[in-house]
């Protein structure tokens, strides 16, 4: 498991696009949105006067989407090149491959979280929940990275195609945009959009991060965020373990 985890990390580091894209694109979107939507903070009921603080939750989830793509694409490449078939000839247990692969994703998620928080603090954001909140944010980032990474692994194991995994990106993107990404749910005027955002689990992941940054300790937001991330992680891990067993049938 250690060797496969190390391989996953080294492989990610050796492809600059896999490291730079999850760091650069969310930061770019943060810059654009926090500049363009700053006026939104003047709306009555907006929870903070800093749009950067409000929008800082988005890179956490957007970075996790990139983690999904990276894990899935790497695993699909292992399938396409026959690496997985060769591994299936060894006594290695399938779960070790999965854990190794996801270990790399969790590490990348933690690095991303550090960069996002660093950029936020440099631009003047103060974390309302304090140092313990920062620690909680790292735990949450790792959990979300694990959950989304496992989803990517499942897609790769079922399809065996990197292209098919990449095709999932727009689907996740839709989930991100039809959420409370740019505005609190209670300020969304269009009823259908507010309903869609309320039904969308991504809204609760965003709101968990946002609560730690803006509000402080909000038990309900954290319970919903951690609960949803845990459920997604457990279901995705179970599904990908099953898919791996099928794929590595000896």
């Amino acid at each position, binding site marked *: 498991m250690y060797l496969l985890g190390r391989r996953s990390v080294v492989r990610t580091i050796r492809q600059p696009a896999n490291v730079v894209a999850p760091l650069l694109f969310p930061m770019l979107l943060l810059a654009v949105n926090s*500049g363009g939507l700053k006026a939104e903070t003047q709306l009555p009921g907006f929870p903070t006067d800093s749009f950067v603080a409000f929008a800082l939750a988005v890179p956490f989830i957007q970075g996790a989407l990139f983690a999904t793509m990276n894990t899935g694409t790497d695993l699909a490449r292992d399938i396409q090149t026959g690496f997985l078939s060769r591994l299936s000839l060894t006594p290695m247990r399938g779960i070790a491959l999965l854990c190794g692969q996801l270990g790399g994703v969790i590490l990348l998620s933690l690095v991303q979280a550090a960069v996002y928080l660093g950029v936020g603090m440099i631009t003047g954001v103060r974390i309302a929940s304090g140092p313990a909140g920062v620690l909680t944010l790292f735990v949450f980032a790792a959990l979300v990275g694990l959950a989304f990474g496992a989803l990517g692994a499942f897609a790769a194991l079922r399809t065996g195609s990197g292209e098919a995994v990449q095709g999932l990106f727009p689907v996740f993107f839709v989930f991100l945009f039809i959420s409370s990404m*740019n505005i609190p749910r209670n300020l969304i005027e269009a009823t259908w*959009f507010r309903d869609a955002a309320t039904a969308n689990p991504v809204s609760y992941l965003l709101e968990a991060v946002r609560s730690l940054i803006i509000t402080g300790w909000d038990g309900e937001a954290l319970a919903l965020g951690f609960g949803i991330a845990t459920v997604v992680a457990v279901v995705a891990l179970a599904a990908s373990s099953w898919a791996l067993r099928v794929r590595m049938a000896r």
Partner: protein
Amino acid sequence: MRTLQVALGVAWRTLHNVVTNPSLLLPSLIFPLFFFTAFAGGLSSVRHVPGFDYPSGYTAFQFVFVLLQSAAFGGVFTGFGIARDFESGFSRRLLLAAPNRTGIVYGYAIAAIGRWLITASVLTVVALLVGMQVGGSGVDLVGLYTLALLLNLAAVLWSAGVAMRFRTMQAGPVMQFPVFVVLFFAPVYVPLTLLEGWIHGVATYNPLTRIVEAGRGFLSGNPTEVGLAYATGVALVVLFSLWALRGLRSAERAG
């Protein structure tokens, strides 16, 4: 005459490929609709921000941006097709067969226009169905769509220049990223006057801001900065025509 024949041949083939291949057609249709939904639906309360005084409402305000965005990305997606033609070896055969190679660039440009017209039609119908208010007259609307057409041409010429220099699909981000940045550094969510800080400075000098603001003026029936917007659009087309034609020469030299 030979140039026109080559242009029409390339345009027909490119459009045929796009229209008959859902994986090429659907993203260019779905993405603008999705952005329109996300921006106009999700952010409609932005119209209550003090100082937001766009007369036709937030749906129309966002429609103009998404229409221009679809025009720009329609051009970029056509650029992806050019790169794919180079990767598959089709372009090498095309360069050998075409009696006038400049027609190849014109052909891709015509195809980009045709492709965008499909997207613009769908987007416009959807916007009208969801109740977008149109304050401008017929002439104003022609002004808006002509501006978008200029942007579409500029984007396809930019992308063609990149595709013909790199001749690989891996150049996709080089085509897409600058267009994305220029688009989003314009006043996307609120008018220029409501932007604050560094983004206001960037948007003020962003050439696309003139086009976006003029487009919004056309749709609401209060045209503003029309001359400057058209001058910017035409300048972009001329500049990227030179870029694309030099890219063609680069591809010719590479064989």
